[in-house]
């Protein structure tokens, strides 16, 4: 095992020396290994180049520039390559993939083939952690369940993140975020109080929680291993990782038989509490007033003398009881203001408020820029761009993104030869078989990317 033996110093990253193998897709698994890598782990993505791993690098839905621009016009930028240009290797330019894969390595390896499985089992001897979030049967079919792998490496910590579990009626259910979102009770709760569930958007939650929780449990399991010498399997379904986030609703049902309806922007006592229009098209400010003095300040900033004098709105309780009228009246004032100017005025006066920021606006947040949240990474296949960075600061441990998102198969040679001990000849054979390399074969690609005949 390559676990670092010398004493770590104050500024060492806590996971320095920890090696992680990852067979991950979509959001949750990749997010887990993202935050492990940010804090020092060496993360090796195991990914095929002779088959397309769906929902990973977006290679199963490569689209030409015009189509991506049209999608962006319709509000979806999920696959928007730099300058909308797929380039010759679009799988290295996918924003969904590149937003989690920085700091990671890519090893070409198809675990569903015999040569791939052989390499994978060698890799398992060398790593501390394996993370996977496939449909449960994928791991069973590949013959790499924990019971098998622990015989090769008893110190292995294996995290499995299925959607619903390795047992139970929904074990085999296939799902995207939008479907898990339904089955964990969150889709229903996040709608408009007077609306239907089809009016919500493609904003999900369970992957963000599962990824972070997975990394937390892996870190705890590394500590457990330091103390006991033992590895273990962690089964953490997306659904189960999420449920505790609804604890107050669940206990309310248990105590009072109340079935919480769609919540929208409501609050059970604050008023005003909502999102109000500001000057411009689709521009909004959120305002959350929890005390009478804050209400008076809000009216002063908005020059809303009549509202301030209105007895219907004098106390928290009366505002709450008249909140529909209150919100309607307030909107007449906010709509005259620029959201960013109003935000500054309100906050400096002590009112809890903030503008709704889209992705482009958030990139210019003075607070995020001041705190160095965004970091630039340069890559020959992507270009030089800013990325959302590390979401936690440690005051005595400066931390930065280290490497750009890996190209498909970029680290194969290093990993096969240096870590797994393949000879030059053995590696050459894998190259010739098309098992390693840095490109999917032409027959798996859309026509515009194939080599001319």
């Amino acid at each position, binding site marked *: 095992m390559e676990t670092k033996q010398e004493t770590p110093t104050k500024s060492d990253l806590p996971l320095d020396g920890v090696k992680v193998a990852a067979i991950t897709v979509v959001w949750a698994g990749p997010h887990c290994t993202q935050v492990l890598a940010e804090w020092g782990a060496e993360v090796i993505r195991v990914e095929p180049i002779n088959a397309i791993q769906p929902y990973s690098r977006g290679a199963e839905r490569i689209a030409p520039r015009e189509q991506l621009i049209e999608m962006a016009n319709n509000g979806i930028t999920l696959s928007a390559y730099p300058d909308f240009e797929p380039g010759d290797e679009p799988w290295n330019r996918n924003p969904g993939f590149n937003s989690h894969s920085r700091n990671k390595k890519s090893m070409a390896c198809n675990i569903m083939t015999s040569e791939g499985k052989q390499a994978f089992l060698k890799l398992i001897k060398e790593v501390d952690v394996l993370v996977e979030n496939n449909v449960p049967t994928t791991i069973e079919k590949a013959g790499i369940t924990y019971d098998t792998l622990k015989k090769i490496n008893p110190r292995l910590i294996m995290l499995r993140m299925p959607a619903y579990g390795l047992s139970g009626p929904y074990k085999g259910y296939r799902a995207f975020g939008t479907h898990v979102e339904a089955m964990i009770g969150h889709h229903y709760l996040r709608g408009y109080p007077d609306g239907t569930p089809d009016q919500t958007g493609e904003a999900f939650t369970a992957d963000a929680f599962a990824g972070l929780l997975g990394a937390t449990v892996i*870190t*705890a399991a590394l500590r457990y291993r330091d103390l006991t010498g033992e590895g273990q399997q962690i089964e953490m379904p997306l659904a189960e990782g999420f449920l505790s986030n609804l604890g107050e609703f669940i206990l309310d049902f*248990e105590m009072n038989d109340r079935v919480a309806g769609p919540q929208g922007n409501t609050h059970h006592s604050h008023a005003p509490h909502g999102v109000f229009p500001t000057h411009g098209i689709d521009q909004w400010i959120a305002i959350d007033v929890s005390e009478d003095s804050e209400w008076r300040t809000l009216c002063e900033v908005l020059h809303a003398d009549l509202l301030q004098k209105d007895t219907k709105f004098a106390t928290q309780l009366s505002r709450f009881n008249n909140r529909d009228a209150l919100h309607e009246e307030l909107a007449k004032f906010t709509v005259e203001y620029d959201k960013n100017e109003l935000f500054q005025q309100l906050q400096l006066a002590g009112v809890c408020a903030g503008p709704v920021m889209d992705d482009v606006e958030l990139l210019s947040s003075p607070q995020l820029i001041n705190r160095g949240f965004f970091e630039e990474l340069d890559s020959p296949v992507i270009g030089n761009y800013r990325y959302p960075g590390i979401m936690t600061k440690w005051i005595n441990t400066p931390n930065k993104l280290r490497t750009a998102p890996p190209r498909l198969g970029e680290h194969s040679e290093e990993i096969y030869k240096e870590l797994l001990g393949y000879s030059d000849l053995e590696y050459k054979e894998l190259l010739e078989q098309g098992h390693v390399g840095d490109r999917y074969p032409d027959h798996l690609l859309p026509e515009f990317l194939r080599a001319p005949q």
Partner: protein
Amino acid sequence: MTRQLFEGIKVLELGTMVGVPYSGKIFADYGADVLKVEPLEGDPSRSEGPFLKDIPNKETSALFLHLNTNKRSITCDLSTASGKDIVRSLIDSYDIVIENFNPGTLESLGLGYEAVTSNRTDLVMGSLTSFGQTGPWKDFKGSELVLQAMAGPMHMNGDPTKEPIKLGGNLAHYHAGLSLTYACILARLRVERGGSGDHIDQSVYEAQAGFRDRRAPGLTSASYTGRSNKRGGSLGRTASGPRPAKDGYANIMAGTSKHVPAFLRLIGREDLAEHPDAKKPATQMSTTFIEEMEASYAIWLIDRTKREAVAATQSIGILGGAILTVEDLLNDPHYQERNVWEEVEHPETGSIRYPGRHFVTSGATRKQMKRAPLLGEHTFSVLTDMGYTNSDIVQLRRAKVV
């Protein structure tokens, strides 16, 4: 040798409402010794509700009961000199301190990271704030709504013809609390391996900006193209997305999947299954074909429960989920079979079900969940363990320190 995941770690929680208490709950639920220091009137979440029978009572707030399982509680007034002394001595004997005071408040009490680490290097202090310990907005007010608006995916949730809406409940604060736990256990691992502790500066704002579900990817796309995700965006709604079923809504990805012919046979439209459009991507299907498919799907779905419809479509490989309410969750056969709920006994509420474990470990063990502490329930025993005599404690009570 078996033990719990966080066994042997001592966590002192100076936290209120959701974020830090959730962070502490994760530690406590998996074996850490978590002591919560509450103001004399209690954590404000005790006054937040929803309450048992809707009667305000500091011992029956659902929010508090849920977020404080497995913890002990003492009350202590930090504005008094003796209160500060008590907390200072507690900090000296704890491994991790988690707190959510406004930036600078602990320093002004003489309990800041520098002050409490003057004699040790192994303390981990995790601080959670709305916007962070530094920066032009560090003293701004944040709340669940405002922080979701400013940095979360609110801009893309909701109907484009209406106002944007937040995600449910207190998700931004739960997420930030989890991120704080991750940082604290990382730092504790470094300490136990011979390194130093640290002062962790977690903001809800940055946790939202780094939120995996569409925010971090959206920021990357925006950096690549100068364009943003918007409300109303969808990867295709042809016989896909939330639709009314007999008992609510089901979200089944039928018309935009590879399984349209099988789907059409399932809903009794063998005739349409043979149509050439059935093998085309949804974007290339004719309007008449789509209308017929949609009409038959609507009739088929309204006749079935959401779970039946999802089970039937899953059986032919179609992705989907039933849009469950809280009641559905608690009655769901899958969650019941997997024992995700846990009965917890409490003197006021009796025995009710809580969300229990988040995951299953093959090595580490987990104990039956214990109810949240009553206000100040452990004040006496904690002070006694610290060496205070009965008469000291009586005096502290009289002086309204504890």
